[in-house]
């Protein structure tokens, strides 16, 4: 039993790692295509049919590119920083139940690497660690743009961590558990049971915070070309640079899963749609939403970002928690 568990876990880890790395790559392709279509363009067309192999070409490019470390950089931290981003993104996935349980050859598989009872806390905590990646990368690069990018990272990620935490507090209060499987089970039984109806404000706050946490437009201030060249990633090249982006796209999936699990009924069957497909659809809707927003909205200024976080979102989140509490009390 013990060894089967270890093997199962290792297989799950490998599947998650491989699958999400590939999905991250694929997401870049999707992003480019969707952005292009929304802008009346075609996007990548040359490599493979409809440019499908562009991802592969980019991968080869990233892997074979020179790994460049600038002279003034702190070598060790510079080299470790992207690993932190990528690793924390993947570690966060450990406590996320991706699909409903299923059986292969009589062996029941639970598609979660580790069902810990503080799952949500773990995911949010590990994702928060991810901020060390850009922060250290920017500080270690020995470059002004990088440093500015790092400073923005610290400010933005820390601030929005507060909103994320407060926004999920209300659903946690309702469900009464931090395990994501409990969240899922709480919403079993159709669309009407989804938490989003009970907590619409929390859902919107969580989504906005999710944009900021994953460094997506309109909150992509960390590496905005027009302002800070490429921010913390200015000095990075090759696969080290690639790891930041694998991290970013993995985080997008994580947020997508979290939002689906907490607010949109998770992997419960949706009418005739089996749960596994349902959650995938939900996650891909969120991914699409990320891209869609990027195509539609301009990004905002750092001061507007902070203003939104501390003066708008956080008060609303607190009020939401209080109201939820009052409602639950009576």
């Amino acid at each position, binding site marked *: 039993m013990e060894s089967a568990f270890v093997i199962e876990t290792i297989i799950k880890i490998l599947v998650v790692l491989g699958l999400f790395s590939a999905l991250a790559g694929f997401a870049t392709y999707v992003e480019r295509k969707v952005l*292009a279509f*929304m*802008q*009346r*363009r*075609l996007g990548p067309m040359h490599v493979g049919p409809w440019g499908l192999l562009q991802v592969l070409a980019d991968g080869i490019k990233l892997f074979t590119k020179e790994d460049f470390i600038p002279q003034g950089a702190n070598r060790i931290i510079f080299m470790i920083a992207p690993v932190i981003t990528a690793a924390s993104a993947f570690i966060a996935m450990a406590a996320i139940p991706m699909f409903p349980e299923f059986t292969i050859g009589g062996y029941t598989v639970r598609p979660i690497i580790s069902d810990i009872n503080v799952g949500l806390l773990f995911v949010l905590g590990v994702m928060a660690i991810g901020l060390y990646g850009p922060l250290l990368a920017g500080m270690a690069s020995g470059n002004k743009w990088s440093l500015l990018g790092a400073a923005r990272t610290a400010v933005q990620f820390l601030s929005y961590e507060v909103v994320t935490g407060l926004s999920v507090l209300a659903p946690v209060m309702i469900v009464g558990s931090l395990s994501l499987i409990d969240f899922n089970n709480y919403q079993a039984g159709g669309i009407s049971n989804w938490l989003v109806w009970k907590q619409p404000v929390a859902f919107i706050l969580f989504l906005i915070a999710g944009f900021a946490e994953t460094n997506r437009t309109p909150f992509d201030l960390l590496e905005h070309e027009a302002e800070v060249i490429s921010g913390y990633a200015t000095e990075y090249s090759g696969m080290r640079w690639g790891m930041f982006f694998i991290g970013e796209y993995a985080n997008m999936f994580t947020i997508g899963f979290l939002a689906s699990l907490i607010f949109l009924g998770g992997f419960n069957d949706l009418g005739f749609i089996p749960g596994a497909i349902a959650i995938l659809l939900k996650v891909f809707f969120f991914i699409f939403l990320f891209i*869609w927003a990027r195509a*539609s*909205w301009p990004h905002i200024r750092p001061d507007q970002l902070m203003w939104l976080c501390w003066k708008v979102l956080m008060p609303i989140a607190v009020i939401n928690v209080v109201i939820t509490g009052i409602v639950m009390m009576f």
Partner: protein
Amino acid sequence: MNGLEQFKDRNVSQNYYRVKIEPYPKTPWERFKRVVRRSLRLELFVGLKITLMEMLRFKIHTIQYPKEKLPISPRYRAVHKLLRLLESGNERCIGCGLCEKICISNCIRIDTRPDENGRKIPTEYTINFGRCIFCGYCAEVCPELAIVHGQDYEHASEQRAQFALKEDMLTPLDKLKEQKEYPGFGAPTPAADKLIKKTPLAY
């Protein structure tokens, strides 16, 4: 206009209109009102709708360049061509040197000499394309419509001397039939004949 031709239509000015800009809020109260108004009107979603509709309509404007090419304007100024007379196949260039003179980047040079019939011929004609700014003055000043701008804009090469010699620019004799009369820079207007005052001739 259909197909790629429509992209050549640059006559778009009649569709311009003035954008109404509401006054900028001055007091915090006004600013707050604007936030509320914009939020309630769901202005953010207007943007999302536009992009989504564009995607669904799928009206792609991309020209996939090496496979597809836009037809270029006859006044386009690409690498020069030296034309020949259509009937005889003789070179049109008479070596008058006006292009050499007018060239503002001073990149044209001609060597001339009298040929066996005592006519002036250019023995060599070069344009330094490292210097040429493709302004079109040479084509405009040419009295014989001999030096013209070609339509061939794909001129990347390993050597800067490429395309620059007379034999590169001159229409080859066997391609004489394919030579097109030049309608671009400096060519006579369609009504040119009407505008010319004729010299009386005694015979």
